[in-house]
């Protein structure tokens, strides 16, 4: 789509005045493409590795208190640099300062207080990183730091209840933020600034927890209590989110025929019930629908891969012989082909 065409679409939709159109047209400063941001991130982490590696190999600083202070100092430099409206060129330095600062802080803190949870100070640093910085990559890393610390805390206290509740909360938040982007960024100007890093970090954390939580709970069945019940609660909340997005899609189709709507939800409920044991497949479906709905291309690719993996695991884990599995797969295939023919017929009917 040409730039002028996009501008025209916005101008027409919001009935912009000539003055506003001119102002919008003047904002020509483009942000760096995604792959440049990825290069900054990778380079920043390599620089961090080199600096931290050098400090530890040479034993330049031996006292943990000094390491902790240097870590905090580097974190403060990151905050200071990211608040200045510098170009994307400085990103590598900012990311490396941030990562080195956090690494040194963790090392120093663990050496001084090995028995006190490191997660809480890290969450505090993450929150400060989100609030004080103006750099999107640092905000994204701060969110990852916060969510990562919460997950580690859950593992440390071996509380499946905590992890499941956390997963449920981020699933609902992620679904809401994806679908109500317009409302969210307008209602809260601060949220507008952190919307993209927050959404991406929530999305990645949810995928991680959904794919890692189930095996961890499986391996520590004796340690984690009520794991089965909680896994079901997580799956049900994911299914609720799927239904929520399907309702949104149904509004787009504006189907007036009540029996058709009833039949649609009946089929959906049966499918959701049949796959209710597979957390990954449910999350794969949810994110596939949500990312397609909100037109987010990179999360869509990740969701598609998650869906394929979830589907593979679902059939692999089935306690059936190969013969029954093959018959089940063939009948599912035929069912989908019938649905395809049905939708094709409906479409050609509408086109007529």
């Amino acid at each position, binding site marked *: 789509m040409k730039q002028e065409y996009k501008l025209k679409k916005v101008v027409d939709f919001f009935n912009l005045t000539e003055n506003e159109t001119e102002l919008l047209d003047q904002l020509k400063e483009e942000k760096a493409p995604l792959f440049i941001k990825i290069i900054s991130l990778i380079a920043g982490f390599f620089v961090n590795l080199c600096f931290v590696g050098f400090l530890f190999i040479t034993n330049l600083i031996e006292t943990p208190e000094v390491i902790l202070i240097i870590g905090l100092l580097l974190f403060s430099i990151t905050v200071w640099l990211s608040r200045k409206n510098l170009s994307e060129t400085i990103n590598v330095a900012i990311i490396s300062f941030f990562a080195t600062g956090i690494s040194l802080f963790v090392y120093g803190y663990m050496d001084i207080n090995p028995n006190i949870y490191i997660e809480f100070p890290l969450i505090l640093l993450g929150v400060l990183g989100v609030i004080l910085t103006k750099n999107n990559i640092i905000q994204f890393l701060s969110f990852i730091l916060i969510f990562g610390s919460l997950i580690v805390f859950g593992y440390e206290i071996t509380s499946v209840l905590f992890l499941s509740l956390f997963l449920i909360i981020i699933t609902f938040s992620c679904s809401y933020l994806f679908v109500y982007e317009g409302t969210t960024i307008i209602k809260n100007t601060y949220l507008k600034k952190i919307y993209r890093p927050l959404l991406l970090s929530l999305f990645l954390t949810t995928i991680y927890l959904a794919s890692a939580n189930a095996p961890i709970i499986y391996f520590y069945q004796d340690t984690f209590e009520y794991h089965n019940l909680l896994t079901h609660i997580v799956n049900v909340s994911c299914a609720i989110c799927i239904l929520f997005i399907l309702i949104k899609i149904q509004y787009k189709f504006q189907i007036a025929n009540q029996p058709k709507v009833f039949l649609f939800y009946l089929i959906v409920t049966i499918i959701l019930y049949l796959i209710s044991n597979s957390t990954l497949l449910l999350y794969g479906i949810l994110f596939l629908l949500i990312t397609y709905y909100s037109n987010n291309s990179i999360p869509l690719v990740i969701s598609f891969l998650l869906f394929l993996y979830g589907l593979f695991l679902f059939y692999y884990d089935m306690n059936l012989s190969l013969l029954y599995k093959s018959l089940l797969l063939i009948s599912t*295939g035929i069912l989908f082909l019938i649905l395809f023919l049905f939708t094709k017929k409906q479409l050609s009917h509408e086109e007529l």
Partner: protein
Amino acid sequence: MKNLRSVFYELTDIKKIQASEAQNFFEKEIFASKFDWQQFFRWAFLACGIGFLGVGIVFFFAYNWDALHKFVKLGLIGSLLVFSIILYFLPKFSEQIKQLIIKVSCLLIGVLFAVFGQIYQTGANAFDFFLAWSIFAFLWVLISNFLPLWLLYFFLVNTTLYFLFKQVNLPVEDFVFFTFVVFLNSLPLLVSYIRIKYTKKELTYWFLAPITIANTVFISVIIGFIIIDSFNDFPYSWLAFIFGICYLAFQFFYAFQVKQVSYIALAAISVVALFCMKIIVFIDSEESILIIGIIILVSASILIKTLINLNKKWHHETGV
């Protein structure tokens, strides 16, 4: 290139917009429309239908495989191959469907060889299998001239070469062999360059990008090993070194021809990585780690600045 989302975000700084109005804009202009969803469900149902049915049939035969007679086994795959070829020549299918059919035919050639090897226990190793597959699929790939099939064919040829290296005792040096592999993989880039020269049309980015990434990684590993182990230890390693440098220079040159910054980024990252390796070998002390850190910091910052400037300039020229 700015997307509609970015334009809207910029608008929120200029004009006060109601929340409902903004959500309405997202629903109508940015989010998937009714038509998009119709296409999504249509293709998803078709893909799932064919996928589940295909996998189900494969599982069904896998379960009963031992009980089947060898002629039935070969006949099944053979008739599927013949059936797909007949389908290809039927005029009622669109060009896209035909290209998908030919892709399936190419896969069936491999399956036929695998079944043949399993029934008659020919004693062929993985290299023989992939070599036969590559040779017999070549004609199909050439006739269809379908880029995704060419990409898969390159993957197949590379797999064949990998097994040639692993299973056959070759009388050539490793470096010479891998340089040959990179040379073979750089042919699409060369073809694309010649096409630009004569027809002003390059090969598509998504086809060349994975090949270029693989080539750059290969070249970096080859030159990296040469740097670490020094030139003197291996005969002809200088040949691989010169070829590697020439390839990276050509990638730079090609990037400027097609105005694509990602090729420059890849080649530049490879050069920085190789330079860092040389420093580790040259200094050989703890300080080298710090120096490498500084080099990465400075070079990555310069690279990003250059890429952003080039990207802006080239997009401004093309107007998209």
